[in-house]
């Protein structure tokens, strides 16, 4: 019997027509064509009487199914064109939650970077970009760390298998954003208020270290810059980034490229410097900072008799994780790209 074949064709034709429809008027025309008084489906029903009695029931059922299918696809198309759902129960419809558009996620590192940039911008800092694969010279020598110096051990540096440059030494994955300091100075524009945020690499991997990570580096070079200015800028950052009532504290440390050098602490958000279970004596370590060493200024072509400066360079991820509320306990998640992790930010 070829009726079933016809029925299939009718459905296909309808779908094809619906697909091409783009206006409500066109849709209405199709509805009349199929579901109207003289419509295709009505005509089909009238054919039921033309077949032998024993087949009538079966055919009737098939046409009924087709009609239901046809109604379904048509109302679907209508919903798409008009934006109104085909519902009968309006109470239910009105009580539905909204259907959200599919929105993705900007990575937490990008969010952290933007937050940092926004804080330093009003102070006149401008973000710059320097090479991530860099010469050893800019990563160490220019920063007052000669080739044989033990201080270099502190940076677990990745070396690249490439011919060394006569002047600039070996090629490395820059282990810190400080490699941008002398490059910035060599641009020759003074004063300097630089914010260098960049991808770095070190040869370590554990709960608090990953081989790729981001640092943000502030560098200020100007006349009459003193430690109190560094302190002021750090306090400004701390109160904007961590919370209005938070303060920083400087402790002695040593870096070859700053003199004096500091370790920067922030008072614990829980006990505010009194000491509690979560912190060390009321303070948490943020990172390193210092007054730019005269040898670094010299490498950057700047007269240290006339100019002084300060610098700080900290891990973006680490700093962001110290912000209360983030609660990320393993830094490796940040580069793990598990979508169940990423969707939380």
């Amino acid at each position, binding site marked *: 019997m070829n009726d079933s074949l016809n029925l299939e064709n009718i459905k296909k034709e309808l779908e094809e027509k619906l*697909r*091409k429809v783009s206006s409500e008027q066109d849709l209405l025309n199709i509805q009349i064509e199929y579901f109207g008084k003289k419509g295709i489906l009505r005509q089909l029903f009238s054919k039921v009487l033309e077949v032998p009695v024993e087949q009538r029931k079966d055919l009737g059922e098939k046409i009924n199914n087709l009609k239901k299918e046809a109604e379904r696809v048509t109302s679907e198309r209508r919903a798409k064109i008009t934006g109104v759902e085909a519902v009968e129960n309006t109470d239910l419809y009105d009580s539905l939650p909204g259907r959200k*558009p*599919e*929105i*993705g*996620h*900007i*990575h937490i*590192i*990008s969010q952290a970077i933007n937050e940092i940039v926004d804080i330093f911008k009003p*102070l*006149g800092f*401008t*973000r710059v970009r320097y*090479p*991530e*694969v*860099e*010469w050893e010279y800019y990563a160490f020598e220019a920063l007052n760390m000669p080739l044989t110096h*033990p*201080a270099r051990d*502190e940076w677990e540096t990745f070396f*690249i*298998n*490439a011919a060394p*440059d006569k002047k600039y030494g070996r090629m490395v*994955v820059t282990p810190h954003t400080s490699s941008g300091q002398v490059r910035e100075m060599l641009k020759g*524009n*003074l*004063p300097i208020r630089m914010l260098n945020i960049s*991808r770095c690499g070190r*040869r370590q991997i554990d709960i608090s270290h990953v*081989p790729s990570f981001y640092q943000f580096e502030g560098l*200020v070079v*100007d006349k009459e810059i*003193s*430690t*109190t*200015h560094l*302190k*002021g*800028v750090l*306090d400004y950052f701390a109160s904007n980034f961590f919370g209005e009532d938070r303060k920083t*504290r*400087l*402790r*002695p*440390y040593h870096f070859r490229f700053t*003199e*004096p050098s500091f370790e920067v602490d922030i008072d614990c958000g829980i006990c505010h410097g009194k000491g509690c279970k979560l912190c060390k*004596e009321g303070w948490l370590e943020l990172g390193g900072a210092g*007054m730019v060493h*005269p040898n670094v200024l010299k490498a950057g072509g700047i007269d240290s008799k006339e100019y*002084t400066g300060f610098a700080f360079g900290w891990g973006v991820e680490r700093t962001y994780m110290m912000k209360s509320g983030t609660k990320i306990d393993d830094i490796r998640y*940040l*580069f793990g*790209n*598990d*979508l169940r992790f990423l969707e939380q930010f």
Partner: protein
Amino acid sequence: MNVLIPYSWIKDYIKTNAKAENVAKALSLHAFSVEKINKIKGDDVFEVEVTPNRGDALSVLGVARELKAVLPRSGFKCEWMQKDVKIPQFEDKDKLDVIIKDKSLVPRFCAVVLENVKVGKSPKVIEERLEKVGIRALGNVIDVTNYMMMDKGQPMHAFDYDKILGHKMIVRESKHDEVITTLDGVERKLPSGVIVIEDGEGRLIDLCGIMGAKNSEVDENTNKVLLFVQVYDPVRIRRASMSLGHRTDAALRFEKGIDYEGVLSSLFEASEMICGLSGSNVSSNLIDIVNEERKLKSVAVDYEKINRIAGVEISKEVVNQTLSDLGFESKGESVVVPSWRYDDVSITEDLAEEVIRLYGYYNLPGKLLTGEVPLVHKDLSFHWEDVARLFLKHDGFFECYSYSATSKKNVSKDALEIINPLNEDLLFLKTSLLPQLLEVIDGNKGYSDKIKLFELASVYHSKEGDLPNQPLMLGLVTKGINKVDLKGIVEALFDEMGVSSYPSFNVINHGGGRLGVEINFEELIKLSSKVKTYTPLTSFNSIKEDLTFEVPEGITYQQVERIILCSSERISKLEFKDIYKNALTFSIEYLDKEKQISSEDTQEIRKNIFKSLENIGVRLR
């Protein structure tokens, strides 16, 4: 480097009313960070993080010296307890023939021979002190050398004098592949350039500054000991210890520099201690070979500069007193650097650090920057990065961050290789963002049928004789999205960035429903524009319709598009709408800028379109 310092041991040097907690806090704020206080056998043992410039403080003496300056400034009493060192009675009996091949190897070479040594256990107080700093007691002679290293920061070594064949020492650099068995029983093959000592029979008897050799060690039968106290070339020690992977306490101290003037007093004190503990006596003359004369080092005190660096006024008296408390001797407008700080302090900035840290960095007020704001041209690439991120986020994309390094199979031929990778999977720097993004898709299989990912990061292509090309790239990878939709996303991003003529890009099918596109973002930025141009609006209405054509094999979209657009100037907009099998649907808009367009007009235009399209076999459906 962290060092363990028992408080009871410090009290050999200072008398104070400060409690252990007070000491820890004062040290942390003014000198070195005390990481923690360990309670060991009723004692408080400080774990102190000593910075690499302060080799002098890797000892009880060094920390005590700091406390002498620091504690009074933190409100505690602190009295220095001077210890006098006795010069031993030397005897011209046992001799040592010393040949130093290159004076730079060992700036200072000191030794004495002790006879009638009875090797045995050390007294309990010494054993306990060593235990508190993590060193195992090994018998009186060796214990004294270790004790003195912790006490004074001066590593020393004891040889069995009679195992130095010919009583002769030749200090020289190693030859490539020479072999020595060190005290720990390990046979070590040496690279060239390591400082070693050869005896009269040509045997290597010391891996200098790192560890002694097995063949000349002190044992229970030893009768004569050569007590050996040196200053080695720090650079050679460091290089050797690193390349051998043998970082001993001695090496870590030698490479940071030794108090040149402290050598003799350490030697005297050690020999006195050994004599006292083992019933021995000195049986040689003092051997003291000075290969490098050290002149006194003076640094000018620039009070104004110190104040400028601090940002607060610190009076001359306070500056002078501080420096004097730290062992700097005043000499007119300059100070003489104490011998134990010889390598560390050279310029006014160094003095400023000493003065201000003792003043207390935490006492400095904060000031915001004043002065001229730098005139710089902003790097707009950061702006465009944000535009792209936001756009893609709102189209359902997840931003990913991947490591810079990846495995060999993920990179092209011009990839940079890492000499010291963490592992084989991180051997090369990436040359494309896509392979790692595809791995992210595979790693998140069950997450959803439809996944959209992007990453904005640099890739690295090697360049002959220069740093690599490291352009910023935008990588997009999707699953469950069709090609036309992904292309549309990219083109919509171009629109968002004000790119008027699209650069070409390829959507690559990576199988399993995965598609990828990679775009050089730096090049894209060059095409981007923030400028928006306004076209005057007309008061006439346009007419819109959809047209569907049957397109035969071999005809591209662009061919059809061009023909339609060329067939009339009154087509104001032509957009791809849909495709089904070979049926291509356009949305088309007609507009006449001079007058209201009529349906007769559009009919005419349509006719033209059909006629032109017929030439390439395209027909209205």
